[in-house]
């Protein structure tokens, strides 16, 4: 493994795949087709984009001008804040995979993850400059900021839609349908997780109280 790290080809492939994200966001249909079918994307690049997205989220908290982003620090939990990206992402990938495998979607779980991460590229790409921009504008010019911010989200959403369409080899209407379906699947999973955790905690509480009782009697 370390031997691989020393080779120049490893890095050149990594950088080539990372650079391919820039091609994907401007040519989504073509780009996302090549991403999996021509193996022009890599997990490492996908992870990098995800990490950049998370970094953008955190940097946004601290460095965006308070005009646009007023943070109530006493109630902020940075792990929960990051989970607000990671948890829906995980649910999305699993839900989408679970649903599409049943309806001859061609994408594998890893590929769904990779394509989704590639689809998020506009977010860090726009948000990082916006952090700088926010510090040189006043409330009167706030519109520019909110419009750019909205663009980064809408663009990413459209890209993810295109990505799903290409890796599953679906038509547009089918993709939209399955996106809605994935949303429902995510809700079901959240419900089951809540149920699971509440049952586990009651179960644990039961054994804890039994143990307490025994200790108390002894």
């Amino acid at each position, binding site marked *: 493994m370390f031997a691989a790290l020393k080779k120049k080809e490893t890095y050149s492939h990594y950088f080539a795949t990372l650079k391919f994200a820039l091609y994907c966001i401007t040519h989504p249909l073509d780009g996302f087709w090549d991403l999996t079918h021509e193996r022009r994307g890599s997990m490492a690049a996908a992870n990098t984009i995800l990490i950049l997205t998370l970094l953008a989220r955190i940097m946004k908290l601290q460095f965006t001008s*308070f*005009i646009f982003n*007023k943070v*109530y620090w006493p109630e902020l939990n940075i792990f929960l804040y990051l989970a607000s990206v990671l948890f829906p992402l995980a649910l999305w990938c699993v839900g989408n995979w679970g649903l599409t495998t049943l309806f001859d979607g061609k994408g594998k779980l890893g590929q769904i993850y990779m394509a989704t991460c590639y689809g998020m590229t506009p977010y860090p790409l726009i948000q990082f400059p916006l952090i700088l921009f926010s510090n*040189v504008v*006043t*409330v*009167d010019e706030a519109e520019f900021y909110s419009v750019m911010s909205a663009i980064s989200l809408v663009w990413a959403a459209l890209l993810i839609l295109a990505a799903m369409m290409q890796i599953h080899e679906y038509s547009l209407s089918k993709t939209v349908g399955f996106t809605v379906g994935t949303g429902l699947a995510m809700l079901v999973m959240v419900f089951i997780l809540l149920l699971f955790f509440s049952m586990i905690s009651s179960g644990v509480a039961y054994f804890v109280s039994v143990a307490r009782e025994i200790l108390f009697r002894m």
Partner: protein
Amino acid sequence: MKKMMTRFGALAASALIAFGSCLAVNAEEGYTYNYDYWGDVQYSPDTYKVVGVYTSVELGLDTLMNNPTGLFIHGDMVYICDTGNNRILEIRRTDTEKFELVRIIDSFKGNVEVNTFASPTDVSVTDDGYLFVADQNNHRILKLDMDLNYIMEFDKPTDATYNQDLSFLPSKIVTDTAGRVYCVATSVNSGLIKYEEDGVFSGFVGATPVTYDFVDFIWKKLSTKEQRAQLESFVPTEYDNIYVDHEGFIYACTTHVAEQDLDTGAADPIRRLNMMGSDILVRNGEWEIIGDLYWGDGGGYKGPSLITDITAFDNDVFVGLDKVRGRLFAYDDQGRMVCAFGGNGNQDGYFRRPEALDHMGHDLFVLDSLDCSMTVFTPTEFGNDIFQAIEQFQNGEYTASGESWQRVLELNGNYDLGYIGIGRSLLRQKRYREAMDYFRLKWDDDNYSKAFKQYRKEWVEEHIVVIFLVVFAVLCIPLAIGKIRNIKAEIDRADIFRDFSA
């Protein structure tokens, strides 16, 4: 013996600890508080302290007061409407703490049928020496001179716009400098009744706009006639009390507010009306002017604050009186809360049924109709500093205002208005960079933007050369590089060199 001493010592120590912790709890739950940017309650040092509570005994009355409801202050004279005894008390404030009964007005001279009052509810005195009395159960507003001679009266409007089925029960009156009389009458919801100087009814002023949304409209369309009758009808709210400020604008308050309207910000319990009757109250604060933001139903009180009376200082700070929790809420000219204090109870500074509020200078007078007492408040050092800072800013003494706010902050570091006040003072002194820091601390984005705009302008003007060079470099260097590359490529491709490479 020694053992006993230690025991005693331990007991004393534990008592001290218990007492100490009790004190700590008291310090946390203060009498005076404010809301910060996030709407969190920030307890503050007291802005007002009680000078005294004056009951019938202190005022030297033979007959005890009975349900007093009206309070008016003119100069150093205090007028109390002793509604239950059908009389008006004229009291002079001779010293900070001393009040002296001047006379008891229970009848007047003049050629009218009834020369006494029946449940007088409010009184007003003008600068040119006339006394106006809302003589509720005699259905009239009386105008008397200071020797109690009958001048004229204002009766039930005969105009068609006034619902003639309603009996005329004036409850609160004010007079403006032109001698016009504005009246709040019971169950009249078209606004304030306005009389010209000669007693002619000249219409209603400041009716609250009727608000309803699309959902209400749909519901009304869908419901049957019976259901519709049960629904709340869309009628304007009636006012509870009024006050004319030093500029002649009318502050009006109403207790007829629905909880959900306060939640959505649709209801305005406090308004400032101009001559046209439109609301011109400045609402630049982070929170609505509705008194308490949280309506926990502790201690048997629930629901929103109901502002039953209002008064305004000459520095445009206005104070509302909440009859639910017996609290006073002061707001500055921008509609930001200055302080909130008071409560229900029997101690000095607490009320049982606060009914009326007025002010003398910066001193506040609250009339309690159940306790039959008048509580007099005067600002503490902290309160005086706040008012001084506000007034200095209004008079254009920006540097001095900043210093006053600094003193305020020394007494209370959690006082948001202090930081913003210093920021505004720095802004006026053109010290934009420092002002920005103060505004940022208290999340004041509007003022921050004002300061930042100026700072940015200055910065750009100072660094124009550098900016120009950077832009020039960014634009020209890639161009130059491209050019050089082209030349290099051309040289490489040139025919003369082909032979050498071959």
